């Protein structure tokens, strides 16, 4: 918490490049949830991306340059929160590794990493949120995005909050923990393999009988929504934050506005 125990913690929203570019509504849902959780939120304008495309392509030099920029833009906040397990995991676990032998930057990266969280786990774990004020008469299923699940151990937190949404019914996806095939640049470089992975995923999602699919990462959501739409499946796709914030009036991902 911040120095003054009564002051609201200052949260820097790392909006992530995909939310910024594709789905700002997720960013606004995150702001709303964080404010309800008792935080003062700001989104520094100098942010672009966490550097994962470069990092996962083996380009360490560019990754380090981008990471330094993120550290500088966000280290003044009490917390950094991202509506994405993948980007939060990047800052939390990979930045410190990246600068492990780099003196002062090692310390700054470690400090930033320690106060960086994925949105839903931050709401439950740090803000102590146990329920949300939202209502949605839908049968939903949930995909556990890989980085959030394995790097940040996010599994029951979103389910716990979803259980408090009025009228919402959650049906489990048996392959919820299997990668959807997005994988950043993987989906372009190995597009046939990625397409097969998301085809299987789409079959599994349709078999649940749910009419809404949720997840916590835009990359996976774009991938799965793209496949479900291509197959003509009558299933909507949204980021979990939109539902928790009660912001489901606008069009779902890949649907007409």
């Amino acid at each position, binding site marked *: 918490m911040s120095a003054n125990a009564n002051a609201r913690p200052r949260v820097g929203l790392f*909006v992530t490049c995909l*939310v*910024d*570019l*594709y*789905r*700002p*509504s997720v960013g*606004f849902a995150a702001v*709303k949830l964080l404010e309800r959780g008792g935080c003062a939120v700001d*989104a520094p*304008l*100098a*942010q*672009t991306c966490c*550097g994962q*495309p*470069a*990092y*996962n*392509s*083996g*380009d*360490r030099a*560019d990754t380090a*340059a*981008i990471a330094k920029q993120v550290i500088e833009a966000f280290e003044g906040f009490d917390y950094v929160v991202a509506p994405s397990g993948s980007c939060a995991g990047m800052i939390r676990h990979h930045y410190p590794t990246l600068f492990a032998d780099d003196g002062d930057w090692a310390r700054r990266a470690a400090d930033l990493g320690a106060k960086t969280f994925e949105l839903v786990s931050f709401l439950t774990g740090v803000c102590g949120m146990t329920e949300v004020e939202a209502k949605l008469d839908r049968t939903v299923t949930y995909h556990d995005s*890989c*980085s959030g699940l*394995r*790097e940040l151990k996010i599994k029951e937190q979103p389910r716990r909050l979803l259980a408090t949404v009025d009228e919402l019914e959650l049906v489990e996806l048996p392959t919820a923990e*299997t990668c959807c*095939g*997005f*994988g*950043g640049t*993987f989906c*372009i*470089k*190995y*597009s*046939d*393999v*990625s*397409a*097969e*992975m*998301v085809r299987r995923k789409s079959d599994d999602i349709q078999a649940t009988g749910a009419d809404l699919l949720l997840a916590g990462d835009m990359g996976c959501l*774009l*991938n799965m*929504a*793209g*496949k479900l*739409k*291509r197959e003509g499946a009558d299933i909507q796709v949204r980021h979990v934050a939109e539902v928790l914030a009660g912001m489901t009036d606008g*069009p779902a*991902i*890949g*649907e*007409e506005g």
Partner: protein
Amino acid sequence: MQPKSHLFKEESTKAIGDANLQSALKNLQTGFVAARARAADGLDEFEALRDEAVTLKDHILANLDFYLERFEEKVTEAGGTVHFCATAEEARQTILELCRRYGAKSVTKGKSMVAEEVALNPFLEANGIEPVETDLGEYIIQLAKEAPSHIIGPAVHKTKEQVSDLFHEHHAKYGRTERLTEAEDLVTEAREVLRQKYFDADVGITGANFLIAETGSTIIVTNEGNGDLTQMLPKAHVVISAIDKVVPTLEDVSTILRVLARSATGQEMSAYTTLSTGPKREGDLDGPEGFHVVLLDNGRSDLLGTDKQDLLRCIRCGACMNHCPVYTAVGGHAYGWVYPGPIGAALDPHIVGLEEARHLPNASTFCGRCEQVCPMRIPLPKIMRHWREEAFERGLPPARERLALKGWAWMARHPWAYRLAARIGIGVMGRLGRRRGGRFRDLPLARAWTKSRDMPAPEGRTFIDRWKAGERG
């Protein structure tokens, strides 16, 4: 085996279009994953056992010379011989000489990935010696003239119907002309055909899951018991194994065995755990006259002390493959070398060279499931990342890819340029997208994506632009 890893892209595409392969892979995926989960859940101390196994193996790797020397001493004491081979070529030659020494026309073989690694079968054949695989899976792919596609289930890529066809075609010469369709009948027929081969062989070659320094024994773990016949009946037993398989004591082996079986097939223990210690002694009723252990290095010792040393902890359980969404989509052959799946993606570039195997560490989404299930806690994604970094430094990715990445990175490092481009690009895409019902069915610059899925359209203005303008929802 001749590496074909540079063809990963083409081969993986082919594999996805192969209906037989896809139906075989489907069974693999669901069966092994559920079995491992049950086995891990059923043993409270499973995680602690994993830690114990990791610590043990790290200790061994830090003292590898010592344990290997110890092992050699004990094998010699028991009347056997250890042959250290630095390269695959040396290992092949050593085995050929041994076969000649024992006058072998045919050899029976138990399952051995290291024998695949040194491409033993084609070499023996070229030298007039017939190798007969006795592990059912290996036998099937030997008939099909294929390589294994999985390290514990070499023929998981074959459907029962394909096996039935193969047996029908190859067993006619033994007077078996009936076409069998039941799995059990197929197994029985293979056993009967193989029976005579065991008696005919002059040398039996097996792999080893472990080498025990304390006793000079080698251990194989199987579910068929074929290994026993392979090593007991012929004149000589030749074990081919890699240097990283050595373990100090029998007690230590039992720790690793417990995580191995659970991770591999979900069993508590494999059905057969066979120890071999030296040749037949005076007064023994059976056993081989000669006992030889061919120990292969093939670049493994170069990994010691590097950021990839953890690879040497691998106990070849196959759990990483069974849980890998890429492996289960494309099968093992697409990887183009002996070790497929995540362990192959991390290990193969070291053995066959990064130029040859560049695709393998890249063809992963870094979903992390392999590391999550690896009983030896090998940080497979991290090692794949090391390879990506090495490849990038050496300029191996295609120019087009590097250029696109550099362009993007430049933008990411210059927020003003990024914001400007984002505003224009997203504005245009948002407008177009609205006219197309919120998604694109075809984007000329992103065909790799739109070939098989739609591309959702962006909302139209970026979050940061709206935030800057004072919007709050």
